[in-house]
C-alpha cells in the first residue's frame, strides 16, 4: 500500500543540516497495524505527517497505492487524502464551535457528499461508537476519552483505508487508553490499515509490527 524510499528531511541550522529523517525506507502492506516507537525528537511524528501528506520530505520517494504522492498536484493530493486517510490526534483536535454531530459531518461536507448520505453516515458512526446520546453536545462538554472517540469517529466517517494516529492515548488515563486501543484492534480486524505513533510498549503490542526510530533513522 505504501512505499517510502530513502526519505530525508532536514532543517538548516546555521550552516549545517540538522536531520529529522535520515534515509528512511519503509513498506507498509494493506491491513497492517504498525506502531512507530522511539524517544522524543526521533522523527516519529514527522514520518507520520509525511505519510499523512501534511508534510513533505526534502528528498526521497513516497508511493501511495501506486501513485507518486510527491509529484502530485495539490488538488489531486487533497482528493487522495480525503478518500483514503483518516487522522487521529493526541489532543483530539475537535472543532470547539461544532457539536459532536457536526464534527463528524464536516469531512463529509468537504468531500461533497450529499446531505442525505451524510446523515446516514453520521448516524451510522454515532451508533457504531455508542455516542448517539452525545450528538448535540460540544467538545468541551465531553471527557477526554469521549472526545477521542469522536475524533476517531470523525477520522473514520470518510471510510478511509488508512488510519494515522499520533499518540492517540497520550492524553487519556489507562482505562480510556485501553478502550481506544481495543477499538483500533477491532478496526484493524475489519480491514483498516493503521499506523500509530506511541511511547507506550503496551499500546505497541496491539499492533502487528513495531518500527523503532532513533535520531531520524529506523532501527
Amino acid at each position, binding site marked *: 500500500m505504501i512505499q517510502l524510499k530513502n526519505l530525508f528531511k532536514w532543517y538548516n541550522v546555521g550552516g549545517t543540516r540538522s536531520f529529522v529523517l535520515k534515509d528512511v525506507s519503509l513498506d507498509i502492506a494493506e491491513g497492517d497495524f504498525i506502531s512507530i516507537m522511539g524517544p522524543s525528537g526521533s522523527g516519529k511524528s514527522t514520518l507520520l*505527517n509525511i505519510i499523512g501528506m501534511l508534510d513533505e520530505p526534502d528528498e526521497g520517494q513516497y508511493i501511495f497505492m501506486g501513485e507518486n504522492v510527491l509529484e502530485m498536484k495539490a*488538488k489531486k493530493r*487533497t482528493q487522495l*487524502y480525503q478518500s483514503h486517510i483518516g487522522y487521529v490526534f493526541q489532543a483530539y*483536535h475537535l472543532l470547539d*464551535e461544532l457539536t459532536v454531530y457536526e464534527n463528524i459531518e464536516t*469531512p463529509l461536507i468537504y468531500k461533497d457528499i450529499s446531505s442525505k448520505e451524510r446523515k446516514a453516515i453520521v448516524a451510522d458512526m454515532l451508533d457504531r461508537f455508542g455516542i448517539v446520546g452525545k450528538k448535540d453536545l460540544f467538545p468541551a462538554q465531553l471527557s477526554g476519552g469521549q472526545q477521542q472517540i469522536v475524533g476517531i469517529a470523525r477520522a473514520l466517517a*470518510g471510510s478511509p483505508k488508512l488510519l494515522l494516529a499520533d499518540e492517540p492515548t497520550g492524553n487519556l488515563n489507562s482505562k480510556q487508553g485501553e478502550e481506544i486501543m481495543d477499538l483500533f484492534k477491532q478496526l484493524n480486524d475489519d480491514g483498516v490499515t493503521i499506523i500509530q505513533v506511541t511511547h507506550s510498549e503496551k499500546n505497541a503490542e496491539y499492533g502487528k509490527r513495531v518500527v523503532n526510530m532513533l535520531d531520524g533513522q529506523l532501527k
Partner: protein
Amino acid sequence: MIGNNLKIAWRNMANNKLYSIIKIGGFAFSIAICILIVLYIRHETSYDKMYPDMDRVFRLIVSAPDGDKVRQTFAFPAPAAKTLQEEIPSVELAGRILPNTLFGAGSNLFTVNGHAENYLDKGFVYVDQSILEIFPLPVIQGQLSHALDKPNSIVITKSRAQKYFKGNAVGQTIYLNNNKNVVYNITAVIDDAPNNSSLYGYDYFISLAGEPFYPGEQNNWGATNYITYVKLRENTDIANAQRSISKNYIQDHYILLNKKNGMKISPEIMQSTVLLQNALDMHLRSKNISEYGTATQYQGDIKMVWVFAGIAFFILLIACINFINLSTANAATRAKEIGIRKTIGSNRSTLIMQFMTEAICYSLISLLIGLLLAFLLLPLFNNLANKALFIPWSVGYFVPALILSMLIIGTLAGLYPALYLSGFQPINALKSKSVTNPKSSLLRNGLVIFQFSTSIILMISALIANQQISFMLNKDIGFNKDQVIVLRGINGIASQVRELKNELKAIPSVSDVSISDYLPVQLEGAKRNGNLFWAKGKEDLELGEGGQFWNIDESYLTTFGLKLIAGRNFDPHIASDSTGAIVNKRMIADLGIKGNPIGAQITNGMTWTIIGVVDDFIFESMKDEGYYPLCMTLANSTSMLSIKTKSTDMAKTLADINTVWNKFSPNQKIDYNFLDAGFADLYQDVQRTKNIFGCFAFVAIFVAALGLFGLATYVTQQRTKEIGVRKVLGASSVRLLKLLSGDFIKLVFVALIIATPVAWWAMNQWLTDFNYRIEINWFYFALAGISAILVAFGTISYQTWKVIRANPVNSLRDE
C-alpha cells in the same frame, strides 16, 4: 455548504463576543458616518436640479481684473435683462431678482387687508415674472402665468398662505410697513421652494413691474443691484452666447451709456467681461463671487464637498483596515481550527469561502447597525451641518445600492484575511507554532500608523478651526457688540419713533438708544448702501472710492461705542449737521484727504462736510477685509432700534422694554435680537466646520483605537510566553508595561510625525480664506499628539495588564 458556513460564522461571532463587538461596532460606526456624509454630499450636489432645462439657464457674472486677482460679481443694472432679451436672439428669457434690503427686500412689516395687526416676516424679494417661469414651482392657487405682470402684484408661498390667510390667499391684499398708499394684490400661491433650491428662503415674490424705486431707476446703467438670469434657446452654442452677451452688455451699453452720462471708465471696466454661470453651478461654485449682501441662504463650496468625500473615504478605509487588522490579529486563535479543517480534508478554496462568508456576514450586520446609527444620529448631524437631510428609504436604488456596496466592501475587507488565514501550514497551525511572518507585522503596524495619522490630522484641524473661531469672536472689532438689544420692525410706528426712543431711554437699566437700520453687524434686515465717493472737486479726475453710506442718529456712536478720534458727534440742534458727515479713518486715507479732515468736503453725488472721524471698526465678515470707507450722515432710517443696556438682569430689562413696546404697538409682537448673537451668526459656517471636523476626529480616533485594541490583543497573545519567562526571571510589572506599550507608543509617534506636515499644510490652506487669521500654534500639534498617545495607551493597557498580571505558570505550561 453556504448554510454550514453561515452557521460557523454565527457561532464564531457568538463565541468571541468582545472581538465581534469591536469588529462590528467599528464598522457600523464608520458606515453610519459614511451614510451621513453621502446624504450630505447628495444634498449639496442636488441644488436647483428640480427645475427643468437647467442646462440652458445661466446667472450673469461680471468678471473684472482687480490688481493681480479677478473680481467677480453678479450685480447688474436694472435695464440689462430686458435689453439682452430684446437684442440677443439666443436669449429666450431673461429675468431679475432684487434681494437688496435697501430697496425693501428681506424683512418687512405687513398688514393683511388693512387689519390692525402687523406682522414682521422675512423672505421678501423683488422678481420679474420670467424668474417664476425659469424656476417654476408648483402652483397651489391662482395662475402662475402673468402673475407678476401687473405692478404691485405679489406671489406668496403655501406656508405663508396657510399661516396668514388660512390657505385662501389669492385676491387678498397686504400693505408693507404701514404704507397704505401701496396695496399689494396676491395673485398666486406657489409651493415653498425646497431647501435645495436657489429660491429657498424667499416667501414673498413682489413684482418688479411697478414704479421705479426712484425716477429713472429702471433705465439707469450706472447702478448695479439686480441679479440677472437668462434662459438660452435650445441648442444654443453657449460660448457664442456668452461672447455676444458680454459684448452687448459691456461695449454696447454699459460703457457707452456711462460715458454719455459723463462718468469715467476705468481700465478695469474696459477689460471686464460677462460670464454665464450655469444655474446648477450656483450653489457650489460661487465661492469667489462677491455677494454684496444679497445671499439669502447658505452658500456651498465644492472644496468642502471634496473634503467631505475624502473624509468619508478615509473613515471607510480605516474601518476596512481595522477589519483586516482584527481578523489577522485573531489568527492565532483561528490557527488550530484551520489546521484541523485542513487535516480532515478541507482544501484552501473551501476555507477561503468560509472566511469570506464570515467577512460578508460581519459587513452586512454592520450595515444594519450602521443604518440604524445613521438614522439615530441624523438629527444631530442635521443640526451640525445646518441641513434637513433624511434617509431616502423611498428612493428605489437606495437599499440595493447600500447592500451592493457592503458586499463589495465586505469582500475587499475579507479577502486579505481569508487568503492569509487559509494559507497556514496545518502542522504548524496545530502545534501552535508561530504561523505569522514578520512581513505581516510590518503591514499591520503600517495600518495602525495610517489610522492614527488620519485621526491626528482631523484632531489638529478641529483644534485649529476652534482657535480661529474664538479668535474672531473675541477680536477687538472696534465697537461694542455686548449687551446690545436690537428691535426690528419699528417702522410700524415710524411717526412715534422719537417718543419710543425717549421712553426706552428712560428705563433705568438702558444706557443708550439709537435709531438706525445700518448696524455694524449684518443682522437680518440690517441695511447696507454701497456708493462711490470722491473728495470734493476731484469727481472728474478720479474713479471714486467704493464705500458705505449710512443713515444714523445722534446717539449711534455712544450706543455702539464707536471711538471718535477727531471732530465731534452729530447734534440735531445744529442745522448744518444735516449736511455734515462722520467718516471712518479709512475714508480719509482712501480719498487722500491731507491735513485736518474736519471741514473737508466729500461727495457721493451729494456733498457732505466732515464734522467727525471715527476709528476704523469691523462691520463686515472678517473673512474679508472687514471694513472699508464709511460715511455716516444724520438722517432717518426707522425700521431698527438698538438699545445699549448696562444691567446684568437682562430678563428684567427685556420685560421693561416689552412693556414700553406694547404701549406703542399693541398690535405687533416685539421682535428683538442680541447684537453679539448676530455677530456670532456671521461665523456660523466656521463654527460648523469646526464642529464637523471635531466629530469626524472623534469617530476616526474611536475607530483607530478599536484597531489598536485588536493589534494589542494579537501582540500580547504572541508574547504571552515571553512575558511568563520574564516574570519568572523577576521582571517588575512597570518594566513589563513599558516593554509592551513602548512599541505601540512608537507607532503613534510615527503617526504624529506623518500627520504634522499634512495638517499644517491643510489648515494653512483653510486659513487663507480669512483675512483676519491666527498663526498656527504648535501647541495644538502637541495636544493632538498627546491625546492620541493617551488614547492609544488606554486602549492597549487592558490587554497588557491582563498578560502582565497572569500567572506565568499558566503561560509556560502550554508546551
